[in-house]
């Protein structure tokens, strides 16, 4: 009887991979136009095309790349750009830690290291809001692969076709990832009041940091880190027994 299937085996490795691809479709819709915008902006900032392509391949982080080309164009010093990039991405430290408890335990370190390259705000959110208790590495591989491909294809389109979409459509698409976040948040807020409370609290805290004059000097990346830490701590204190959504 030792071959009795456990529930976790119902999802085969292949179906986990295709589930991951499917889950990445809304991300891909958001990444392609932003990738195009990145390609266009990099071009207009005078960044060599091969550098733009390499940025999307090696860095794969929207905020870092936009800030990066901006700073390069402004002639900012080498180490200042590196430091800004690092601070901007500190939030991924928290996301990666949170995700570590969501991936099937005992996954090999090599595979985890590979998968961690694909952590972005968007892939992290989609992964976190899955209903499975534990995610298979294949799921994350599918999710990351489509998100990464969309980002890079978008970048190439932006560089090589530099005409692209009409301006009004392109600017409207800037909202894509934000409304995807709304689409992720609303269903779990319906299930859990704690979730709703924490999300609203985070908006209030971040709004405060964003609009308070002397604090606006902090970088956006740092403000998001501070907000996330304060708010998640409040969550853990107020709702210690709350189940994740």
């Amino acid at each position: 009887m030792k071959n009795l299937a456990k529930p976790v085996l119902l999802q085969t490795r292949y179906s986990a991979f295709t589930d991951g691809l499917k889950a990445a479709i809304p991300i891909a819709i958001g990444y392609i136009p932003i990738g195009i915008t990145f390609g266009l902006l990099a071009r207009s900032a005078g960044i060599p095309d091969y550098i733009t392509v390499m940025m999307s391949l090696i860095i794969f982080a929207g905020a870092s790349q936009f800030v990066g080309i901006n700073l390069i164009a402004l002639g900012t010093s080498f180490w200042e750009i590196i430091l800004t990039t690092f601070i901007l991405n500190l939030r991924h430290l928290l996301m990666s830690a949170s995700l570590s408890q969501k991936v099937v335990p005992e996954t090999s370190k090599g595979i985890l290291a590979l998968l961690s390259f694909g952590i972005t705000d968007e892939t992290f959110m989609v992964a976190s809001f899955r209903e499975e208790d534990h995610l298979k590495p294949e799921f994350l591989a599918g999710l990351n692969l489509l998100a990464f491909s969309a980002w890079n294809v978008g970048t190439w389109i932006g560089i090589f076709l530099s005409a692209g979409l009409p301006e009004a459509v392109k600017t409207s698409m800037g909202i894509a990832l934000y409304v995807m976040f709304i689409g992720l948040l609303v269903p779990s807020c319906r299930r859990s009041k704690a979730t709703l409370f924490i999300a609203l609290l985070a908006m209030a805290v971040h709004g405060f940091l964003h609009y308070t004059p002397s604090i606006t000097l902090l970088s956006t990346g740092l403000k998001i880190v501070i907000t996330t830490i304060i708010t998640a701590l409040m969550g853990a204190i107020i709702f210690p027994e709350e189940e994740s959504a």
Partner: protein
Amino acid sequence: MDNLWLLVLLMGIVTFIPRILPLTFLNNMRLPRFLNSFLRFVPFAALGALIFPGILTSTGNTTSALVGGTVSLLLAFKRVNITLVVFGGILGAYLGGLLW
């Protein structure tokens, strides 16, 4: 800037460090209860912080962003598929931008 290659490589490395460390080293660990609870709230906290106030400037026009955000909120409440929520939000932002 002469060393663009090196710059991109280092930017890649400092972006990768916060991604790789926790996932790789915490996966096998059973974390203390409080830390676990904290980490489970991270997605919701970060999501709130990422949505607001960033959404307001996402289309370069606050009205367009508000219309798009409202449309997506309504669609999400109606339990519409998330891909349609995204398209609805883009369409709302587009129409909002045309009207105002």
